[in-house]
């Protein structure tokens, strides 16, 4: 849309000034939202005293102590005992000994992180798969009472999920689903599937039926047509939906606190329980949070192209 005459501009293209103003607003907004994240990251590389000093320190000597404390459990020893030990084997060993402690073992952070991965991705996969099939059904077949069913599905989101925490807690105890990965996957799937059905129905409605009809006339069954023609065209919507489901399942805290405590505990309830000597170990908590952000970040970056087209809900799609 460039023009030789620099003073002229097309009606649809914003003027350079408008673009600059819009850009400034976006950057300002990004900065505001990034400040807490930056603060968390900075805290994760501070020493415990630096992390709680007042006024807050902007300039400090970075240390990996927070990450060491996050991954390990430590016990206090006498300086004499520490002197008698052989040379430290790694950075964390050295930092720990500097605090008159020795590493006693690994913390539960990675197992909890693993639980989060399993439960969040597992429930997202289930919710999106079920949601895609249900949305396709609602979009293409004359389902009896379709509107009522869709409203019913949506109505499960009309109260905060935590409102049903007590019944679910009792039910899970009864069925032996408390503190199991399966239980958490089912729970998050149940919460997310309604969102998935609604989002995906919108996307699938936009795919003309003629594509499947053409495929069916060309000798494919409906299921084959769905897989070869509908699914490839729904990837944008599926990616957008998956991100929404994943973010919910990944960040969910209330149910996780209530229903998991041991082997199936996810990272969100675990991170705040990291206690150092004499109180909260803020650098370790910040380190745990920083690492916790990475998977969502990666997922979002990988799917960013689909997302950009998907989240605008058809506005950018051709």
């Amino acid at each position, binding site marked *: 849309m460039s023009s030789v005459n620099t003073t002229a501009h097309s009606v649809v293209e914003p003027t350079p000034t408008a673009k600059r103003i819009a850009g400034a607003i976006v950057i300002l907004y990004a900065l505001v939202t990034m400040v807490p994240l930056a603060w968390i990251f900075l805290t994760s590389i501070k020493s415990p005293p630096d992390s709680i000093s007042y006024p807050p320190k902007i300039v400090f000597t970075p240390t990996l102590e927070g990450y060491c404390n996050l991954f390990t459990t430590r016990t206090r020893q006498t300086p004499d005992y520490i002197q008698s030990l052989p040379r430290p084997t790694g950075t964390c060993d050295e930092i720990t000994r500097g605090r008159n402690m020795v590493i006693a073992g690994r913390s539960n952070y990675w197992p909890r992180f693993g639980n989060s991965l399993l439960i969040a991705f597992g429930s997202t996969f289930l919710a999106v798969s079920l949601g895609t099939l249900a949305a396709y059904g609602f979009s293409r077949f004359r389902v009896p009472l379709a509107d009522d069913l869709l409203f019913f599905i949506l109505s499960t989101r009309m109260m905060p999920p935590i409102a049903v925490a007590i019944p679910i807690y009792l039910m899970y105890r009864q069925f032996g689903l408390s503190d199991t990965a399966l239980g958490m996957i089912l729970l998050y799937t149940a919460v997310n599937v309604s969102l998935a059905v609604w989002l995906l129905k919108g996307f699938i409605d936009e795919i003309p039926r003629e594509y499947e*009809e*053409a495929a069916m006339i*060309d*000798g494919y069954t409906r299921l084959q047509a769905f897989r070869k023609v509908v699914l*490839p*065209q729904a990837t944008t919507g599926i990616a957008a939906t998956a991100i929404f489901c994943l973010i919910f399942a990944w960040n969910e805290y209330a149910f996780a606190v209530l229903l998991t405590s041991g082997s199936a505990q996810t990272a969100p309830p675990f991170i705040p329980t990291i206690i150092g000597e004499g109180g909260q170990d803020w650098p370790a908590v910040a380190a745990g949070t920083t690492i916790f952000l990475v998977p969502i970040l990666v997922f979002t970056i990988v799917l960013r192209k689909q997302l950009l087209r998907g989240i605008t809900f058809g506005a950018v799609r051709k």
Partner: protein
Amino acid sequence: MSEIKIVNLRKQFGDFVAVEDSSFTVNDGQFLALLGPSGCGKTTTLRMIAGLELPTSGKIYLDSEDVTFNRASARDIAFVFQLFALYPHMNVRKNIGFPLLSQRVPETEIRARVEETAKLLRIDHILDRSVSGLAGGDRQRVALGRAIIRRPKCFLMDEPLGTLDAEFREVMVHELRELHNRIHATTVYVTHDQHEAMAMADKIAVMNHGVIEQFGTPQEIYNRPASMYVADFIGSPPMNFMRFHSGLERGTRSVLLDGIEVPVPEVAEDVPPGELALGVRPEHIRFSDTSRLRGAVYGSEYLGTNQIVAVETASGIVKARVSADRSFRLGETVGLEFNPAKLAVFDCASGRAIASTYAEARHG
């Protein structure tokens, strides 16, 4: 290739009758155009033949096999959609080869057949392009390629030229007919454009409100319309109707138009008194100073080789197609003369054409 036979086909959506008890046969290798205005049930009829819609009642035979309730994929037909339905996530080659893939044709053979088909349609140079960037005509050809590659029993096309601009349409009309002449595939072609139907079809079925008003060759449809609806739908400008009140007896050879006797083909049935209309095509009118049927020139439209002159008569406005040499003044009185062999008489109440010797001769 094969024959399509439709018997008493009917489709209702709730209480709404989209297609009403239609019957017709498309012979092997024939090109049928389903012609009618928007909403008359053309697409619904086609979709029932394809198996995309189940009929409320009636039967569909393909090569005398009853396929009424067969799945679309089991009918061995090809369908060209109005918007082509080219798969956007595949390139041209994949789109054309897609139907073969479902039949587990080996890859090398698919490749060969795609290339052969592309050559036939002169699109072999764009095989590896994405379909989203293609021009309308090329999209059309790719859609055709996808249809013909399988060598199906028959082709169904739903307004395949509807989205092309007028100039390109003309080109595609010729290409389509040429393609048909080469591969002789039984074809049902849906259109609302009478010129497309006339130019391509062996047989035309004119539909109105779910009913097939007339089924015949383009010549029959044009020359002997079975109803006022068909007469009015076909031809531009359409047939003129001059209304009069009268009854007719079998063997009558003229009608009285506002007291003036006008010769017509011999009437072959008795008609009780009622509102009738004399139908006359614009090109079957001559100006003659001796004619007793007179009117005043109301307007004219110059078309190059000829002109359309509208004349206001006692029986309504009549449009005549005459040579462009003569110019008329508005209000000028002229005499009209009709070619008696080409006239038709209709019953206004039912819209039906009254049987005449001409009609018998053409139909018999």
